[in-house]
């Protein structure tokens, strides 16, 4: 399976903006609960194919979407 990763945001508002943007770019994605090993936050994060990380972080920054951090997910 393709290696996946997640992008964390300061609030759900930015996660939803990010979702809208990746959707428009046709990149496969899913909003999922933030994995416990990454943060104790009760919010959501955006899961994307890890190879798309640079591209996604690039256009999110351009659109003014505030990002906390990004992490590869352990392969299942």
């Amino acid at each position, binding site marked *: 399976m393709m290696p996946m990763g997640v992008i964390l945001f300061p*609030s759900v508002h930015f*996660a939803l903006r990010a979702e809208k943007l990746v959707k428009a770019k046709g990149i496969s994605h899913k*909003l999922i609960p933030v994995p416990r090993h990454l943060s104790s*936050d*009760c*919010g959501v994060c955006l899961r994307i194919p890890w190879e798309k990380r640079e591209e996604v972080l690039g256009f999110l920054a351009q659109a003014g979407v505030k990002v906390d951090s990004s992490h590869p997910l352990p392969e299942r």
Partner: protein
Amino acid sequence: MEKKIIYFDNAATSYPKPEEVAQAMVHFSREIGASPGRSGHRLAIEAGRVVFEAREKISQLFGVKDSSRVVFGLNATEGINQGLQGLLRPGDHVITSSMEHNSVMRPLRAMEKEGLEVTVLPCTTEGLLDPLDVRKASRKNTKMVVLNHASNVVGTLQPLAEIGKVCRRQGVLFFVDAAQSAGAVPIDMEREMIDLLAFTGHKALFGPQGTGGLILGERVDEKDLVPMKRGGTGSRSEMEEQPDFLPDLCESGTPNTVGLAGLLAGLDFVLKEGVERIQEHERGLTDRLLRGLLETPGVAVYGLRDARKQLATVSFNLQGVAPSEVGLRLDEEYGILCRVGLHCSPSSHRTLGTFPEGTVRFSMSYLNRPAEMDRALQAVGELARKEA
């Protein structure tokens, strides 16, 4: 025979709402229901999308680039209180007009007792503020000009862009109360140089009661903004301090998501119809009513009496009859529902010369029809003749 009612109290709250609004609220209650921004399951995310989309549509409507600066609350009053109490401190000077609603006047009067300096600029007897007066009233410590865009009593529209320009030049924040105008008149925060805009969801945006908020322009530094309440936001849960970013800074506790689902449908309706078209229709209704009232003997009409310079809100009195009596008879004998008295704005009525009796107010929406104006004019004409 029971006559069909005519609802002319849209300045208090719009009714009826487009059918989609109720449908969206039922859909949310049945199919989504979860708390937005809390939990990561699919329904919580779906609820989050509803709130997010409502924020995006508000931004689209008022020319806001960053929708995170739209803060939702109960109504315009909450937005106004957040903006005033969140930014003004003792020793600051604030300028306002004599046409304000109590939602601005009461917080300012309370803060005045704590050391805020307040200047209330008199308006003309039609309710207009002179932008030059704003410039003349500015002082070194002036922090903000707060102004009702459109009078809730007579519909008079203030020259926002001109006053915005004065504020920008003087380096003060321009705070607009758009409770009456949002959705009925085109507003662009950038074009009119507005720094804070308070709006309500349940009037010309056709949402349900319990929706509204505040938009913070880019010149407002959120680090200066004290939130009116603090609590759970679903973000930064590890911290015991309030998040310092918008909108979470000002949005604590579970929001009125079912209401925001309705507001989103109302916003879709307004955007689909187009604010220009809405304004044109309302101008037609207002013009029809004004012409008829001005031709009716024994009727005094207040304000600018010009459909192009006001909202679809018209105040009048019948000679020798108390407004409360007119209101009661319109309801009982003609099925016309309006609002009489002081409309939560004693200062406006002092300006118009109608204090303390007040006026009879007809306030229309995009969903009223010309035939209703004609029926109302006939009713007012009959009442005036009976009293003459």
